[in-house]
């Protein structure tokens, strides 16, 4: 009896100490809490993205000794891409000293965090995805859908098709089919494609593929009947390779299928084998390891045995490079904020200021060793996307090859729609819309 009671106490004490572990940061460290997903259906994306992010943070620590002497630290919590686990990791890691920014790479987790990070005054980075209207920094001071939001993606794809046809006026009477995943994510751009169809007078058909999308025979038969000039693939997971294989079966040419940002990775095309050859997809960051920053990661980080990817062949893959670019953007935001606030551990609100002044022109991008990896970014207090350019890559059966220049989406056309949606959110939540970047953020 007594023994078991002691055991119970010991167990309770062990549990309590584990729950209370929060190692104090030494002076001048900046902490990145990572809600990573290395297990579960989206592990391929998670290991690539968080691997690249960690590789870049390691590069900064090893090569430069941190950002102006401030060491970068991080800790991972596994989410399996599930919202409730992401929330748990948020609650677990938010109390650590010197939290710089959150980078969940999951729309669902990001949504659940908007209220929380706004209250805690820490930036939330949703690179390439996220809530479109959070582009409006007047209403969402702490949320940054950097480089590309779903609406800009739509515009970028339309502009690319126009460039292939020889100008937007040539889009008239062309036919485009959008094949979208039957989820809120897939349906988000339906009204935007309609807007562009009206604007450029092309005919448009949008066809849904129910989740998970491993059977698309009937959809592709309708596509064959419709005889479109292009098919836009707005896919997700297993839906992508199945779409490419079924397209081959019905004889639709792969080089007239344009994938969106969630259909653009190696994992989306390799399972499709030959059927993927010629397939084209949008990206904000080119793949490959020929860029100087990637070479330094290979030499400095992997050379020191600190590389995060288990499979070195994945260095330079789409998700790995997205992680690297995400690392560059986070680190540069800290550097910019340090120039104003001092070379020390910054608060979340100070890092937000850094992100709101994250302006990297092509010359600065080149100096960072990322020329041609991504184009540029120009975040301001009210534009949290930062006018990211997109490029298009074609799968040659072994790797992605860039086949376009850097294309600018039609931001001016989309901005009023975004502002309207953001204004609705502000009204619903009683948020005071900021009127200038210098204004203190109030809740």
């Amino acid at each position, binding site marked *: 009896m007594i023994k078991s009671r002691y055991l119970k106490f010991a167990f309770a004490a062990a549990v309590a100490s584990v729950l209370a572990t929060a190692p104090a940061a030494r002076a001048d460290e900046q902490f990145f809490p990572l809600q990573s997903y290395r297990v579960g259906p989206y592990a391929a994306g998670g290991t690539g993205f968080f691997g690249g992010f960690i590789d870049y943070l390691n590069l900064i620590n090893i090569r430069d000794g941190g950002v102006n002497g401030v060491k970068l630290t991080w800790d991972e919590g596994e989410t399996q891409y599930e919202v409730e686990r992401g929330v748990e990791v948020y609650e677990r890691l938010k109390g650590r000293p010197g939290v710089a920014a959150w980078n969940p790479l999951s729309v669902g987790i990001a949504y659940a965090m908007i*209220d929380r990070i706004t209250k805690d005054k820490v930036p939330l980075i949703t690179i390439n995805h996220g809530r479109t209207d959070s582009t409006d920094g007047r209403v969402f001071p702490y949320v940054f859908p950097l480089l590309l939001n779903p609406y800009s993606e739509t515009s970028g794809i339309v502009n690319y098709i126009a460039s292939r046809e020889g100008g937007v006026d040539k889009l008239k009477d062309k036919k485009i089919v959008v094949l979208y995943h039957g*989820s*809120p994510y897939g349906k988000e751009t339906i009204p935007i494609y309609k807007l562009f169809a009206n604007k450029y007078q092309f005919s448009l058909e949008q066809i849904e593929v129910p989740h998970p999308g491993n059977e698309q025979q009937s959809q592709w038969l309708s596509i064959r009947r419709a005889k479109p000039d292009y098919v836009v693939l707005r896919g997700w997971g297993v839906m992508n390779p199945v779409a490419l294989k079924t397209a081959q079966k019905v004889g639709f040419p792969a080089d007239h299928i344009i994938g969106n940002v969630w259909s653009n990775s190696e994992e989306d095309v390799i399972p499709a084998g030959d059927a993927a050859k010629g397939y084209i997809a949008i990206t904000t960051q080119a793949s490959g390891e020929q860029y100087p920053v990637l070479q330094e990661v290979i030499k400095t980080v992997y050379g020191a045995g600190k590389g995060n990817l288990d499979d070195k062949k994945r260095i330079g893959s789409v998700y790995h490079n997205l992680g690297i670019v995400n690392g560059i953007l986070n680190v540069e935001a800290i550097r910019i904020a340090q120039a104003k606030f001092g070379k020390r551990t910054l608060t979340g609100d100070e890092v937000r200021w850094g992100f709101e002044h994250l302006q990297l022109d092509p010359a600065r991008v080149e100096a960072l060793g990322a020329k041609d990896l991504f184009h540029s970014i120009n975040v301001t207090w009210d534009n949290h996307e930062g006018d990211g350019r997109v490029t298009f890559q074609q799968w040659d059966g072994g790797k992605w090859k860039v086949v376009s220049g850097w294309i600018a989406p039609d931001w001016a056309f989309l901005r009023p729609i975004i502002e309207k949606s953001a204004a609705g959110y502000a009204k619903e939540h009683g948020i005071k819309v900021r009127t200038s970047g210098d204004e203190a953020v109030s809740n």
Partner: protein
Amino acid sequence: MSAAPSTAQLSPSAGAFVIAVGAAIAFGAVPLLGFDYLMDAVLTPFLALALAAVGLNLLTGYAGQVSLGSAAFLAVGAYATYNLHLRLPQLPLLVDLVLAGLIAAAIGIVFGLPSLRLRGFYLAVSTLAAQFFVQWALTKFGWFSNDNPSGVIDAPVLSVAGFTFTGPAGRYVFSLSVVVVATFLTLRLLRAQSGRNFIAVRDHELAAKVIGVPLLRTKLLAFGVSSFLIGIAGALWAFAYLRTVEPAGFNLDRSFQILFIIIIGGLASLRGAFLGAAFIVVFPLILSRAGAALLGGVFDSGVLEMSQRIVVGALIIAFLIAEPRGLIALWDRLWRAVTRPAAVRNT
């Protein structure tokens, strides 16, 4: 050694004392001491899933009707609360919550109708219809999510009679109050004639019919009350815990999770629902944090996660072999051994 009374029941005054101490800790000490992480990330989801498990246990454990549609009713509760709050802002939140429960109950009764003809596995499969239909409808019709382009909705502020429950402590106390009241009412229902009817239907449907138990009413009541409770749990899950909702969060995995909670916790036991929820929600967290603290430097989080799954899976098998009636039976045996060691030795 004198023979101790064989019952594990506490005397009424001791029982009241235990309840009073429990209430003081749950309502007083926990929120006042302000363990934010504990409340926001552990206890609030535990309470929501425990209430859902109470609901499913009433249907499956007591009335013997297997259901795989729990997540659908969670979703109905969450979306109904959201829409009531949005479209009828003059209604107080508690009324929204009860109405949302009633809407979930109505849908539960509709999907419970096949139970009159189907049993066991066949019924379980037919409840899958609820699971897929609700998720499809919520994705298909933008109205449910107020035409939010991404289909994800934001939580309203929890407020009752002018008092707003913000902050971890507020949300926790709100959930705790709702769960305590709902569990108490369920207990009353189960101890009344309808509770005995549930058990009669479960144990021998034909015999129950012969002695005059109204089958139709009993089964539909079980579906209705169960869905009502699960609907309210869904509202808590969405608005007290996550504070956002997307239809994908209420998939079949969630239904299985709730089913596992009651099987592991113990069928036909309300305490079992809570114990099972604690095991499914809290235990993996402890394991995950212990793993990260002890071995975080050696392995990456993916490897740790995989090994935790193996540990949890092995434990579930071990528990169920040791006690097929679930954790609650194990707990009762342990409790008897602690309070009446002699009795155990003598028996």
